[in-house]
């Protein structure tokens, strides 16, 4: 047998050495410092690697369960849609009416979308943050909504300094907060939620943008309209 400490030790520890060779190698180990060292280091390395194993968190288990539930509802097979089917007859005309209302509102206002809002929606859709700068503040705590922070970064949107905070809930729904020291411009066609200076909301494609000017210049962006509004409520701005 050719003497190759690394290869021999790997085969010995991996249990792929023929029995006779294995017995011979065990005896050889007692008098060969190189082979002994190979075995010792590999065992220590394996022990170190194994010692950092962790159990999956309850949050991850919830997230997996939520993903499977959500995907079952969204799957193309009508049999999998279950309780959502009743939404179709009502939902389609409502969605169509909303789209028409948005087109009419935009056409009548004649105002283009402010670049900062356009960029926020584009980044949300592309799963990007405003930039790589450290945010000036910590991510707001939204654990009451089971939203966990998954990323943060600061940058500039059309001259507006913005910090972005991305969150995911157990079902994989994503919400991003955009915070600035200066107010965001109002979107054309926005619906005022309480008075002219209060928060407003608008839908762009499948994304809801909710802006609250007080106490912070804040955008909440997400695909799930209810989650966006709940987030704003949890932050005390709605």
């Amino acid at each position, binding site marked *: 047998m050719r003497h190759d400490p*690394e*290869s021999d*030790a*790997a*085969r010995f*520890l*991996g*249990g*792929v050495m023929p029995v006779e060779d294995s017995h011979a190698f065990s005896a050889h180990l007692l008098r060969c410092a190189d082979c002994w060292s*190979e075995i010792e*280091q*590999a*065992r*220590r*390395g*394996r022990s*170190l*690697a*194994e*010692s*950092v*194993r*962790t*159990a*999956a*968190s309850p*949050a*991850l*288990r919830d*997230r*997996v*369960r939520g*993903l*499977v539930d959500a*995907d*079952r509802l969204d*799957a193309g097979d009508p049999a*999998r849609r279950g309780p959502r089917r009743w939404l179709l007859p009502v939902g389609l005309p409502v969605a169509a009416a909303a789209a028409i209302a948005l087109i009419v509102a935009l056409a009548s206002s004649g105002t283009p979308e402010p670049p900062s809002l356009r960029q926020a929606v584009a980044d949300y859709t592309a799963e*990007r*943050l405003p*930039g*790589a*700068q*450290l*945010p000036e503040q*910590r*991510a707001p705590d939204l654990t009451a909504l089971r939203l966990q*922070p*998954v*990323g*943060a*970064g*600061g940058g500039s949107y059309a001259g507006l300094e913005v910090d972005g905070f991305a969150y995911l809930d157990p079902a*994989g729904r994503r919400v991003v907060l955009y915070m600035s020291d200066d107010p965001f411009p109002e979107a054309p066609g926005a619906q005022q939620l309480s008075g002219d200076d209060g928060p407003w909301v608008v839908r762009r494609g499948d994304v809801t943008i909710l802006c609250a000017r007080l106490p912070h210049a804040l955008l909440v962006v997400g695909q799930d309209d209810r989650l966006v509004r709940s987030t704003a409520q949890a932050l005390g701005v709605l």
Partner: protein
Amino acid sequence: MDDGDFLDAFTEHLDRLHNLARGLTGSPQDAEDLVSETCLLALRGWRRNPPDDPAAWFATICLNAARSSYRRRAARPVEVTGEDWLLDRADERADTAGSALSSIEVRRVREAVGQLPAPQLEAIALMDLGGYTAAQTARIVGAPRGTVLARVHRGRKVLARALADDREGGR
């Protein structure tokens, strides 16, 4: 075999997948994202054709998703994660029963794993973190069993030396 069967199978292997993903990614958040991506890809594959060996099949999907993610990330702006609030508390709680490593050592082991060449990293993540056998790992990475054993052996030696150097250096 419906979605309920899938969920049972996936959650049965979730700890192993979580550890595999944690070894293949740089942060707990990335690991959870990778497991989520694996879950969705596996679910859709499961509906078409449930696998014979779910453990190895989930791991194969996870590894392929991780490899795609490396490529995507290369073309993506860096996301700053404020360590203050995105800290890996699970890592600090350290770990499985019987672990005698401090949180600093756990962090150091993870760093050392992350610095391994990709083939060694994948072998360590699958065998030592995920607990897959050498035969399963060989099928998952598509390499001969002897090659996998050589990779994991070299990776383990690097880890042992890295941590020994730390201790000798008083870190």
